[in-house]
C-alpha cells in the first residue's frame, strides 16, 4: 500500500509545482500590463505637476513654445504642428510607395523577385533611425538645397522624406501579407471574367484586403508621429508654429530628445515639460491604435 500513498504524495507535490509554475508564468505575462500602467502613471503624475504651473487652456492655445526662456510660453500646438507636418511629408512618401510595392509583390512579381525583395525591405526597416538621421542631414539636405537654393540647413522636408522611406516596409509588409491572404478563388473568378492583373489587383484583391492594408497605414502613421532621431538630427532645434515643410521645426518627440540631452534636475520645469509633451504624444498614438483596432474589426473579411 505504501507504493500507492507514495504516488499520491508525488502527485500532490506535482500539482503544487504545476500551480507555482503557472503563477510565475502569469506574473511574467502580467509585466506587460504593469509596464503600461507604469507609463500612464509616470506620464500623468509628472504632467500633473506641470499643469499646476500652466493652465490647460494656455497649453492648448498659446502660439509659442519657449519653456526654458525667462518669458516662458507653453503652447503645445507649436510642437503638434511640427509633428503633423513631418508626419504628413513622411506619409506622402510612404503610403503610395508602400501600397504600390505591396500590390506589385503580391500580384505581379515572380517568386524569385519576391524572395529577393522581402529581405531587402526588412533590412530597410531594420536600420537604426540615427543612421537615417545622419543620411537626411548629410546627404539629402544638400541634395535638396541644390534643387531649392533657399532651403535652410535644417528643414522638415528632408527629415520627412527620409522618414517616409524608412516606414515603407511597415506599410508594404502588412499590406502584402493581407493581400496574399485573399483566397485564390477570388482572383480566379476575376481572371475568368477577362480582367487583367491590374484590374484584379485594384478592384478585387485590394478591397478584399482593406482591413490589413488599413492597419498597415495606421501603424505607419503612429511610427511617423513617434519618430524621434531623424527629426532631432535633420529638422533643427527651433520650436516653430508652421505647416511649411521647407522650414525647420520641432516635433513632440524631438523636443523630448533635445531637452533630455542636458542633465535635467528632477523638479525643474524643463523636466516636467518633457512629460507633458510625452503625454500628448501618448494620447495621439493611443487614439490612433484604438482607431486602427476598430477599423480592423469593422472591415475584416473572413474567408
Amino acid at each position, binding site marked *: 500500500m505504501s507504493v500507492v500513498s507514495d504516488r499520491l504524495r508525488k502527485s500532490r507535490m506535482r500539482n503544487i509545482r504545476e500551480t507555482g509554475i503557472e503563477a510565475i508564468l502569469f506574473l511574467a505575462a502580467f509585466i506587460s500590463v504593469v509596464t503600461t500602467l507604469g507609463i500612464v502613471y509616470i506620464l500623468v503624475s509628472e504632467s500633473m505637476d506641470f499643469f499646476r504651473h500652466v493652465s490647460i487652456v494656455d497649453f492648448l492655445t498659446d502660439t509659442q513654445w519657449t519653456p526654458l526662456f525667462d518669458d516662458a510660453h507653453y503652447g503645445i500646438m507649436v510642437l503638434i504642428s511640427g509633428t503633423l507636418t513631418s508626419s504628413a511629408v513622411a506619409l506622402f512618401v510612404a503610403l503610395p510607395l508602400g501600397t504600390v510595392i505591396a500590390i506589385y509583390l503580391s500580384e505581379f512579381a515572380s517568386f524569385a523577385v519576391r524572395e529577393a525583395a522581402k529581405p531587402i525591405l526588412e533590412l530597410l526597416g531594420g536600420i537604426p533611425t540615427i543612421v537615417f538621421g545622419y543620411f537626411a542631414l548629410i546627404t539629402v539636405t544638400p541634395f535638396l538645397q541644390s534643387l531649392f537654393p533657399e532651403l535652410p540647413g535644417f528643414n522638415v522636408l528632408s527629415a520627412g522624406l527620409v522618414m517616409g522611406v524608412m516606414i515603407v516596409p511597415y506599410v508594404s509588409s502588412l499590406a502584402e501579407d493581407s493581400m496574399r491572404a485573399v483566397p485564390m478563388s477570388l482572383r480566379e473568378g476575376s481572371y475568368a471574367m477577362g480582367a487583367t492583373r491590374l*484590374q484584379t489587383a485594384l478592384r478585387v484583391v485590394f478591397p478584399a484586403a482593406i482591413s490589413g492594408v488599413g492597419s498597415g497605414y495606421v501603424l505607419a502613421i503612429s511610427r511617423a508621429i513617434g519618430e524621434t532621431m531623424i527629426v532631432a538630427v535633420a529638422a533643427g532645434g527651433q520650436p516653430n508654429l508652421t505647416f511649411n515643410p521647407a522650414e525647420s521645426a520641432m516635433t513632440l518627440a524631438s523636443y523630448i530628445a533635445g531637452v533630455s540631452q542636458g542633465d535635467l534636475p528632477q523638479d525643474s520645469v524643463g523636466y516636467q515639460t518633457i512629460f507633458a509633451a510625452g503625454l500628448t504624444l501618448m494620447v495621439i498614438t493611443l487614439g490612433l491604435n484604438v482607431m486602427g483596432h476598430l477599423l480592423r474589426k469593422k472591415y475584416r473579411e473572413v474567408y
Partner: protein
Amino acid sequence: MKDADLQAIRNLIASHKRNDAVFALLGILCLMIGVLTLLALFGEMWVNGAERLNLDFLSSFPSRRAGQAGILAAWVGSVLVMLVTAAFAIPLGVAAGVYLEEYAPKNWMTDIIEINVSNLAGIPSIVYGLLGLGMFVYTLGLGRSIFTAGLTLALLILPVVIVATRESIRSIPQMVREAAYACGASTWQTVRDHIIPYSAPGILTGVIIGMARAIGETAPLLVVGAVTFIAYLPSAPFTGEPTAGLFDWASAAFTVLPIQMFNWTSRPEVAFQANAAAAGLVLVCMTLLMNATAIWLRYRLRKNIKW
C-alpha cells in the same frame, strides 16, 4: 460583329494590357527607390567614414580632436546594455508567450494582457525613455546607469519577443501536446520537454530581431540619460581598486554606439562627420548581421520543419 466594334474591343484590351505593364514597371520603380536609398546610405557612409575605420578607431576613447576619437566606450557600452536587456527580455518574453499560448484561460484577464501587448508594440520608443527616466532613474533610484538603460530597452522589445514566441508555439501541431499528455506528462513537462525545444528556433529569430532593434535605439537612451563623453570603461568584476563586485559595472554611467553617433552627427565640424559615418558603418553592420542571421534562421526553419 462590325469591324469597328471589333477594333474598339481590341483597342480596349490593348490599353488594359498597357496599363498592366505600366503598373508592373511602376512597382519595380518603387522597389528601386527603396533599394537605391539603401545603397546611397551605404555609399555615403563608406565614402565619408571608411578611412576612419581601423583598429585605433575601435580601441580609442572619444576625444576633442576628431582624428583621435574612437568608439571604445560606445561599443563596450552597447554590449553591456544588450547583456542586461537580453537577461530580462528573453526570460520574461518567453515566459509570457508560453503563458498566453499554453496556460491562459479564456477570460477578461487574458484579453487585457493580449490587447495590452499589441498596444505596447505601438507606443513610440521615446515614451519608454520617459518611463525609464521617471520610474527607474528617479522613483526606483537606479540612476542613469547601464542597468537602467538595459531595463528600459528590455521593456521596449518585450512585445517583439512575446509575439515571436507565441507565433512559434502556435505552429506546433496539437498532436504533439496530446501525445505528451497521453503519456502522463503534466503541462509544465510538456512545455519544458516539447513546446520550448520545438519552438526554440522561432523564438531565437524573434529575440535576434528584437535585439537588433534595441541596439540601434537612440531616443529612449537619450532620455534615460546617456553620457556622450566617457573616457573610461566600467570596471570588470573583481578588478580595480577598490575591488569591483560582480555587478558593479551595471551601475556605471553609460554611452552606446547610436548615442555616440548622434553626438558626432550634431557637431558642426566636418571632421566629426567622418567619425559619425564610421560609427554608423559599425552600427549598421551589427544590426544587418543580426537581421541577416534572423532571416537565415527563419529560412532554414521553413525549409526543414514539416509537421
